[in-house]
């Protein structure tokens, strides 16, 4: 059975998601989804252990050779991302019971959880697959279900609908650009398999054949992926979508969707085109660094101006994506390690903080700054988690957020790019402002009449919040294991495809 884990990682959430339609009403869909995501999480650990111990694993669907059929290839890099995604999925699913009951019409819970599991299936599938067209199909599964899940926030705030529609339009344009890029590559390589495509491309690049086509394919893939990961000038869909989505959905999306897109970008830049092309033949490093650097500053300022705390965190997510992009655009081992480890830490922190806000929304029906005033005394545990997460966002030493920034900073030093260091510092300063603006309101604000009667959120929700926040603290204090895994992943990616060269 251990051999089948790569397939089951994706097939299990798919089949389970479909079965959820039949589970009926009440807590049954939730219990079912929780069990499945738990199993998937356990499998991801087993897979990561296997990959770390014995190197890349390949799984051929239908036993067709990977160049002809569809194959999954798991190496240190996507093994790690799979672990992150399934961890967040398991925790948010367990968390979601009360929150979802509160925000989604109760006669559709089974459909909600079916879509939820299909989203997870899509995200895991994008991460694990070794076939470029499969990426497109799975991207569409995860996006389609997310559009619907985000739109369901309209029961609480109708702007969820327009946010979701904007996501539909921009997300589909992004996916279409991806499809175009894949089409151009297929036209000149004749294959869809990532490994095969990488080999063929290296030959073509070396012989300087089809160079204009490769260049355009590269550009379109990069733009499409940037849309999906919400890189600075292409970020318009993200803030409102995160702000108005149902709380549990925000927790899941914010922690995973953009991270998976980041992973895909790393895979395309380093794995398929190869770093010699991506950062040598085309000067994408400067473009990416500029966009990401400006993004960090701009989104920091925007975050400090928001009155809805969910929106503060959404903008801050964009800034953190900026750090991750900076990390891998530096094109050296420290930078890439920083990116990968920040994928984990930011997922934990941001997931945890959004879950904390979900607790607030559950008790008060909203997450505006005025709602949070004086909550430090009413909901001590939730607010403590929020504050701890906030410290992580700033990159306070001994928190998870620090580790990633540290390695990205080291990468910038290695690259001799002082400007980036300044940007990271300024970004952290902005983070101090927007985090403490909220934290001040929490502990020193005068409670509004709305929140006088607020009490601590239900234990199950607080515990889940603390699992994520606690893990981020643990990753800050004992960072060796996560950094080791990330460094492994970075080495594998820098070495070309799957570390097999």
């Amino acid at each position, binding site marked *: 059975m251990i051999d089948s884990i790569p397939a089951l990682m994706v097939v299990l959430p*798919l089949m389970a998601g479909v079965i959820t339609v039949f589970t009926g009403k009440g807590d049954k869909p939730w219990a079912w989804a929780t069990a499945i995501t738990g199993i998937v999480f356990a499998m991801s650990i087993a897979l990561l252990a296997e990959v770390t111990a014995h190197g890349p*694993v390949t799984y051929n669907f239908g036993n067709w*050779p990977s160049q002809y059929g569809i194959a999954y290839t798991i190496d240190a890099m996507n093994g790690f991302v799979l672990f992150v995604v399934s961890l967040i999925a398991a925790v948010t699913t367990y968390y979601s019971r009360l929150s979802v009951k509160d925000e989604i019409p*109760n006669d559709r819970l089974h459909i909600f959880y079916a879509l939820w599991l299909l989203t997870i299936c899509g995200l895991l599938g994008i991460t694990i697959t070794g076939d470029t067209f499969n990426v497109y199909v799975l991207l569409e599964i995860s996006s389609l279900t997310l559009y619907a899940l985000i739109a369901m926030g309209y029961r609480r705030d109708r702007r969820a609908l327009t946010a979701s529609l904007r996501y539909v339009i921009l997300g589909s344009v992004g996916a279409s650009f991806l499809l175009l890029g894949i089409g151009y590559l297929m036209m*000149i390589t004749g294959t869809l398999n990532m490994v095969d495509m990488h*080999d063929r491309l290296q030959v073509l690049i070396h012989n300087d054949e089809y160079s204009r086509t490769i260049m*355009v394919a590269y550009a379109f893939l990069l733009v499409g992926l940037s849309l999906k990961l919400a890189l600075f000038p292409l970020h318009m869909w993200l803030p*409102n979508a995160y702000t108005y989505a149902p709380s549990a959905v925000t927790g899941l999306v914010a922690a995973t969707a953009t991270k998976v897109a980041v992973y895909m970008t790393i895979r395309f830049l380093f794995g398929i085109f190869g770093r010699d092309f991506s950062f040598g033949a085309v000067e994408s490093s400067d473009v990416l660094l500029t966009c990401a650097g400006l993004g960090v500053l701009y989104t920091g300022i925007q975050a400090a101006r928001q009155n809805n705390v969910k*929106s503060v965190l959404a903008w801050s997510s964009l800034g953190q994506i900026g750090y991750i992009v900076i990390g891998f655009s530096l094109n050296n081992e420290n930078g890439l390690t920083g990116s990968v480890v920040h994928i984990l830490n930011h997922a934990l922190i941001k997931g945890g903080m959004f879950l904390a806000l979900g607790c607030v929304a559950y008790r008060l029906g909203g997450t505006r700054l005025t709602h949070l005033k004086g909550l430090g005394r009413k909901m001590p545990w939730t607010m403590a988690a929020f504050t701890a997460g906030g410290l992580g966002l700033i990159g306070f030493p001994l928190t998870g957020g620090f580790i990633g920034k540290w390695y990205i900073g080291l990468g910038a030093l290695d690259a001799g790019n002082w400007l980036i260091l300044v940007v990271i510092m300024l970004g952290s300063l902005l983070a101090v402002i927007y985090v403490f603006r909220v934290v001040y309101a929490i502990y020193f604000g005068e409670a509004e009449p709305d929140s006088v009667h607020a009490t601590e959120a239900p234990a199950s929700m607080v515990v889940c919040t603390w699992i994520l926040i606690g893990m981020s603290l643990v990753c800050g204090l004992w960072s060796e294991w996560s950094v080791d895994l990330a460094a492994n992943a970075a080495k594998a990616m820098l070495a070309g495809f799957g570390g097999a060269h």
Partner: protein
Amino acid sequence: MLNLLVIDGVLLFLVTITALAVIEMRNLFAVTMLTGVYSLLMAAVWTNMHAVDVAFTEAAVGAGISTILILGTLVHVGVKERRREKSLNLSALLIVTLTGGALIYGTLDMPAFGDPEAPVQTHRFQKLFDQNVGKVPVTDTHHVEAVAHGAEQHGGEQHGAHEDEFHGHVYNTVTSLLADYRSFDTMFETAVILSAGLSMIMLLRRRSDEEIEAATQRTERVDPDTIKTERMDPKTTQTVRVDSPPGSDSSGADKKLAAEIAEAVDSAEQIQHDAPEETDKGDQV
């Protein structure tokens, strides 16, 4: 070849004109009909290019299901597009020109249209078409090394692959690729369709059966959401949440609550109206 190319050219010309008309027409009903025409023309183009399965699908989906879908939407949203924008949006035109220019620039290096020597026609095509790829023995699939880069070193075949005798059993190679070689993709395609259906149910179903029943029994309907998500009075929010799941009760209290809430929401909106800087500054594009 020439006559086929002429047909191709004429059809593509029509396609382009129809696409322009779809964009420029203001009556959405006409736009819907033109979308159907566009799809049928596309289906003709693809038949001409021998993509029969694709043409079949486009005709069924583009001209059939999409049209019904858009018409169903128009029933809800009305058929008139209001004229607010200028006739030509220059910034959009600039973006489009740049994108299109880049794409055309990329085609310059491509193999010519219909080139039999193009990589897509030579690399790995013949075995797929002849359906004699041969499977990897199951015991070999998990081996960790050599798979990734074994291909070129082992003469284009993964080592241990067996010659397949499946040769020519399915006449339609599109089906054999769709349902066998790449059947994993097709499974997700089916899942995409299912998620679209589930999303529609999630977003558009107005009420569950029980709710509809309960609603018809009341003299005046009270939206259960009003009670659940109002935000001015947390005490009622909590009591309602604990005591009465939405839609399960129907009483005068409901109506009274709803009236109160409507009033409260009114005043809240009034406040926001007076002080716009208090409102959320979410990015609006």
